[in-house]
């Protein structure tokens, strides 16, 4: 089963998101890497690398889709990916989708046995998803 890795600037935020994901898809392996090495807000490439390795192992090599919060995490993710062996790196995909919505959508697809590409697509699709009902005009219900 495809695993998820949640990457971001806050350990608390990611722990809470992991709990939300566990509610909708308890069988999907989810690892987290949030906060700096010093435990403050920020990112840590070594922590991300560890989360990726753990997720890969939990997926039994099937693959990992990464969801992250802000663009600056992408750089730390890039460093972490470079530290992985090529064969492992090839089984990791980073989603351009939003962190929360993407994680939930990806987890649902992964729980249904989706492939690496399908789980990634589910997460990516959340970027353009309409989450306000159509009758909310200018942010307010009609």
């Amino acid at each position, binding site marked *: 089963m495809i695993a998820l890795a949640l990457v971001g600037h806050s350990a608390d935020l990611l722990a809470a998101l992991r709990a939300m994901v566990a509610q909708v898809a308890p069988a999907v392996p989810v690892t987290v890497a949030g906060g700096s090495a*010093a435990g403050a807000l*920020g990112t840590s*490439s070594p922590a991300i690398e560890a989360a990726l390795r753990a997720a890969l192992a939990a997926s039994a090599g099937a693959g990992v889709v990464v969801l992250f919060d802000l663009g600056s995490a992408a750089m730390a993710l890039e*460093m972490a990916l470079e530290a992985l062996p090529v064969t492992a790196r090839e089984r990791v995909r980073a989603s351009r989708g939003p962190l929360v919505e993407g994680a939930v959508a990806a987890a649902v697809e992964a729980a249904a046995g989706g492939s690496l590409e399908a789980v990634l697509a589910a997460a990516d699709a959340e970027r353009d998803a309409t989450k306000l009902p159509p009758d909310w005009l200018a942010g307010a219900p009609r």
Partner: protein
Amino acid sequence: MTEEPLLVRWLRLAAARVAAERERLTALDAAIGDGDHGINLDRGFAELLHRLEVGTLPDAPSPATLEAAGRAIMATVGGSSGALYGRGLQRAGAALAAGDGDAGAPAIVPRSRADRALIAFDAAVEAIAALGRATTGEKTMLDALVPARDAFRRAVDSGGDLAAATAAAAAAAAAGAEATIPLLATRGRASYLGERSIGHLDPGAASSAILLRALADVAAG
């Protein structure tokens, strides 16, 4: 008493300067970032000095020092700056280790300190530009680093020694950092501010100028 290698003296002075300017860097970052640049860099350099003390960071040869310094920065500074400075230092070390790089052929003529420093500095700047996927004019550290590298190269090409080249680079970096004030940020956390980023000096450019000033000061002896 043997004097420490220039590279180590630079790292020590850089650490001291970063610590001294920690509040200013943090204030710059509070204006257009997430307010932790000074704190993060200070912590990273403190860790770097600690590793020097306990011997886990080699003080020689230069390639090894640079690569280990890059790893230390990357691991402890965190965020974009940690990744960028860390990658820059690592690639600088790799470039020096590779010699002149063309199919691994050794240099026919022994390189001067200035030539070697240019190889390292150029590799660092290119690595930072590549990782950050940025160029000049986007209100980043490159706005200090690229003019500094260009000034360094011009000095070396016209026969300048290490002291002259690093002095030229430091001056260009300071001017480059000042020149970020009117720029609109399109990269990093500052880009979220859009037009509100205008009128503020980029913290990454400021810290680059600090690092290069420290290098010039140790090279001046």
